[in-house]
């Protein structure tokens, strides 16, 4: 190699990944500084779909802020619905009937499965495999149909209300869930044979995108990213909310810290979701789905409140400061993917471009949720 080409090799160049790029799954822009095929630096540039959700929370009544929760992480909107209604219930001391709590758990877990199925399809699509996406969507469609029959919508749900749920569920929904679980269980081995054990997938994921537990701590990463780095942390277990303590389920944890570990965490999580739903359906009590007394105008006592839930992508938390008025003084939304994305810059240094994209897929980004 002549000295001239050697110096050319050292020349770095910048490319933009996004804001319109299929691999970023939304309007995210990543400024990549490249040395040939290798990533020298990757700087995520945010704000392309910033909609001021936090400010909106400070400018409208507590009830009017409800629909916003379906528009953060649109793939697991019910977890966000749940986080917000539980926070307000905590603030205004509203008791939720038992049946409503069970319905919330069943629908939220169904939503989590649908979110993971979509991630699964999109992730394999990022790696160049198109077929699994179609299979995953086939299964996900069943969940959307079931959820549509109770919530009335397919994606941006606004189903929970302060003190319960907007309507009861029928027995057909519950049996439908059980039928779906049976179907998905029978399809899981197919997914593993087709994708998990595929030699190409294994070689592209194993050992790629190492994220140490220390790095997770540094950036506040949660959810499957954290659990793929060997830390057993799940809000449903560590700070239980709703009726989760009544169910017996495991938190999948993998110690490999690579993309494969994060992949496996999500695949195993689907099994655990199914376990939770089955137990909840077996135990669901009869009764009302709305609290008897919910004040028309909610004015929580002044104070600083915080509530966290486990969304499909990690810990979603809301901090609300109330001045005793009918709207919040401060509304802070802690988005899990924002923290998960933050570690991308450090973790992707020195990676091949194709590996960096696989790594980005494995942290499962939903851009409207990062930008809020």
């Amino acid at each position, binding site marked *: 190699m002549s000295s001239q080409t050697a110096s050319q090799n050292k020349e770095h160049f910048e490319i933009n990944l996004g804001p319109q790029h299929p691999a970023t799954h939304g309007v995210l822009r990543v400024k990549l500084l490249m040395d040939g095929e290798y990533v020298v630096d990757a700087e995520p540039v945010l704000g392309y779909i910033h909609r001021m959700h936090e400010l909106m929370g400070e400018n409208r009544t507590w009830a009017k*802020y*409800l629909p916003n929760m379906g528009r953060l992480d649109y793939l697991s909107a019910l977890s966000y619905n749940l986080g917000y209604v539980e926070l307000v219930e905590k603030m205004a001391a509203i008791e939720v009937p038992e049946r409503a709590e069970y319905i919330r758990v069943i629908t939220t877990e169904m939503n989590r499965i649908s979110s993971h199925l979509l991630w699964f399809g999109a992730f394999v699509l990022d790696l160049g495999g198109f077929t699994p996406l179609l299979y995953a969507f086939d299964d996900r469609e069943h969940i959307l149909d079931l959820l549509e*029959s109770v919530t*009335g919508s397919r994606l941006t749900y606004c189903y929970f209300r302060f003190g319960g749920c907007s309507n009861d569920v029928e027995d057909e929904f519950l049996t439908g869930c059980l039928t779906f679980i049976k179907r998905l269980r029978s399809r899981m081995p197919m997914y593993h*044979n*087709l994708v998990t054990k*595929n*030699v190409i997938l294994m070689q592209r994921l194993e050992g790629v995108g190492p994220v140490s537990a220390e790095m997770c701590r540094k950036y506040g990463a949660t959810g499957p990213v954290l659990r793929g780095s060997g830390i057993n942390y799940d809000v449903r277990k560590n700070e239980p909310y709703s009726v989760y303590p009544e169910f017996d389920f495991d938190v999948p944890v993998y110690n490999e810290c690579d993309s494969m570990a994060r992949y496996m965490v999500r695949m195993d999580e689907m099994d655990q979701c199914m376990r939770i739903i089955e137990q909840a359906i077996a135990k669901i009590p009869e009764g009302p789905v709305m609290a008897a007394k919910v004040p028309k105008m909610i004015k929580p006592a002044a104070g600083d409140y915080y509530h966290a839930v486990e969304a499909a992508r990690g810990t979603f938390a809301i901090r609300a400061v109330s001045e005793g008025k009918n709207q919040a003084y401060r509304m802070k939304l802690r988005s899990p993917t924002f923290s998960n994305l933050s570690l991308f810059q450090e973790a992707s240094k020195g990676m091949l471009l194709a590996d960096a994209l696989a790594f980005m897929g494995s942290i499962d980004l939903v851009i409207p949720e990062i930008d809020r």
Partner: protein
Amino acid sequence: MAGYFTNILSGTKSLLVGLSITQREFFKKPVTLQYPWESLEMTPRYRGHIQLVKDGETGTHKCISCGLCDKGCPSGCITVKGEKQEGVKVKVLVRYDLDFTKCSLCGQCIDNCKPGAIEFSKEYNLASTRKEDFYYDLLKRLKEQK
């Protein structure tokens, strides 16, 4: 060296297993709906844009123009106009406008309506290039609805 060949063998096997799965799927019936030729019946809870409920007895709406739906709407897309008319105790609805471009289909208007005068429609085939097509005069729609 032995590892090299077992790798090739197990890799080939994994690909063959995958191919057999896709091949099986290939001969299955399509799972998708052939949309323009077939269409779906919406579930009873489906949330389309809101509409006034037709009262079976009186043949008209049940709205008392209280304006609670308007007040509770997060997106401010409802405008209700009622008028005092002689001989009628409650205000009479003269206009009910919905700006569907802003509606988030949250259902709070329906929750707020005591007399149960509004409901979600089951319309989902909505498409237009003009914004004005989604400004609905619900009273007029109700009258047109036979």
